[in-house]
């Protein structure tokens, strides 16, 4: 039995508790269509509850007025109001080119908020983020659905999200992707492309291979894209999209493979593609240099780099424990998560700076689906936390 079989078996037993669903398709479809022109039941509920609350308010006010006229001998207790988070109302007041960390508003998931890397300015950027999105490192553009938008929501370009996986370049103006060279129902080599937003893609090199789309989750993916550094790092994953079978460091200008390596469990690369971190699947990571030489062996798994590549974000057991930031050259841990039981969720490098923003899963916040609310620590190269955001849901690259 493989883990895949075990997981599937676990979900099978879970789904058995759902019971018979044979009738559900027709019933839900009919009810769903019947509701298309009407106000949803939830809105009706909300309206009903609002009516009750208004009535209670009126009665309460009436009672209060009467109470003031006829003072009570026994004072009533004052109910403690719990704070209710409200969405950020102020627009983000910085120039369009100022890098920001973007996140879903804690009180309105559909709203995109941003905070500058010094933590001093935050505000509302836009809406329409209910289904996620992939921001560039600067937070100035984001890919959502099949569109690339700017901070004002203006559509700058479109793309095919099924066949084009957007991986933003480190300068935020273009993106790399590996696309199929034949139809989705056939095996084919991958083609690394570099696309400047609003322009046609440029073919860079044939790299990796795709199996038919129905076959499995394998295929090549990009983990670094740097027109300035003239490199991209692409890896071929294993059968279920897990693991690293091989990776290639490709020169973007020529399409030449500079060096290649593998096999491993997880791969991360510095933003300029000079350094590659390959976890071996048993809790150790090797850092490779620009030409493929082994530079360092680290305990734990590496999930990201600072912009200059000097620092790495590491954690144990697939990110489940002890998120930390490490200077890989001397092995010094410069920051560790205050609670080692918090899991790693995601990280971002400060554009043009040395800070790292690292999101950790705080069990204090309820999970809400495919998007996890996290504690976000913004940590400098000296290991000092410049600011922290709580209960925010990040976008991910």
């Amino acid at each position: 039995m493989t883990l895949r079989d075990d997981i599937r078996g676990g979900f099978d037993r879970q789904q058995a508790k759902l019971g018979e669903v044979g009738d559900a398709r027709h019933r839900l479809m009919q009810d769903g269509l019947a509701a298309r022109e009407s106000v949803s039941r939830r809105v009706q509920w909300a309206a009903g509850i609002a009516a009750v609350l208004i009535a209670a308010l009126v009665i309460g006010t009436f009672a209060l007025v009467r109470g003031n006229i006829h003072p009570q001998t026994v004072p009533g207790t004052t109910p403690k109001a719990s704070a209710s988070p409200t969405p950020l109302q102020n627009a983000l007041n910085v120039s369009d080119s100022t890098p920001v960390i973007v996140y879903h508003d804690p009180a309105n998931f559909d709203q995109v908020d941003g905070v500058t890397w010094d933590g001093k300015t935050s505000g509302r950027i836009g809406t329409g983020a209910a289904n996620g999105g992939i921001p560039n490192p600067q937070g100035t553009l984001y890919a959502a659905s099949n569109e690339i938008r700017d901070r004002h929501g203006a559509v700058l370009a479109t793309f095919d999200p099924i066949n084009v996986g957007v991986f933003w370049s480190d300068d935020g103006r273009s993106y790399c992707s590996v696309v199929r060279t034949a139809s989705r129902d056939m095996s084919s080599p991958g083609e690394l492309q570099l696309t400047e937003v609003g322009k046609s893609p440029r073919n860079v090199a044939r790299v990796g291979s795709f199996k038919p789309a129905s076959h499995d989750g394998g295929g090549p993916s990009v983990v670094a894209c740097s027109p300035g550094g003239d490199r991209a790092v692409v890896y071929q994953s294993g059968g279920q999209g897990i693991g690293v079978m091989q990776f290639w460091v490709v020169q973007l200008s020529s399409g030449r493979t500079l060096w290649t390596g593998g096999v491993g469990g997880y791969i991360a690369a510095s933003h300029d593609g000079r350094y590659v971190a390959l976890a071996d699947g048993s809790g150790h990571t090797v850092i490779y240099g620009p030409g493929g030489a082994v530079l360092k062996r680290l305990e734990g798994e590496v999930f990201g780099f600072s912009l200059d590549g000097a620092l790495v974000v590491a954690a144990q057991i697939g990110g489940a424990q002890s998120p930390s930031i490490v200077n890989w050259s001397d092995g010094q841990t410069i920051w560790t998560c205050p609670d080692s039981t918090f899991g790693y969720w995601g990280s971002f490098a400060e554009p043009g700076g040395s800070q790292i923003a690292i999101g950790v899963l705080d069990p204090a916040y309820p999970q809400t689906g495919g998007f996890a609310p996290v504690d976000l620590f913004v940590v400098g190269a000296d290991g000092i936390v410049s600011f922290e955001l709580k209960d925010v849901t990040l976008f991910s690259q």
Partner: protein
Amino acid sequence: MTAEPAREAEQEFEALIGPLVEPGLRLAFSMLGNRSEAEDATQDAITKAWRSLSRLRDRSQVRPWFLAIVANQCRNVRRTRWFSTVRIPLVFQPGKPAESHVERLDLERELEKLPMADRQVLFMRFYLDLSVDEIGTALGISGAAAKGRIYRACKRLRPGLLEEDI
């Protein structure tokens, strides 16, 4: 819209979305752990899908597109479940332990302990058989990010996991 074109539009919609109702319901149940809420979320997703179908430019993307709507509905249900504390779904609570099922129960406990987001990505990959790209589309993340989530979720389940074990 007159009756005949309206009926044709409904039939086209049913042909497109109908096969996805059960996967949508199962996804909703895996997220909410409650059949009634899962049906509500799925039904609301169908209504929303009808209203926004014109925005679906590529019909080949209908599966991740619809499942994304379902997931979003579930997220809203959990966000607005203000009248009760958010509870851990009971769906993974094991039944009577038996010697021969110890490993199986261990895995179920580990699945139960996973963050919801990790469990969802495993459900999409290993139960609904969505491709990595489809998961990325459904969750609004890149394929590489989807792979990263699957990897981390598997490692959290089985810390000593090797690629060939999958």
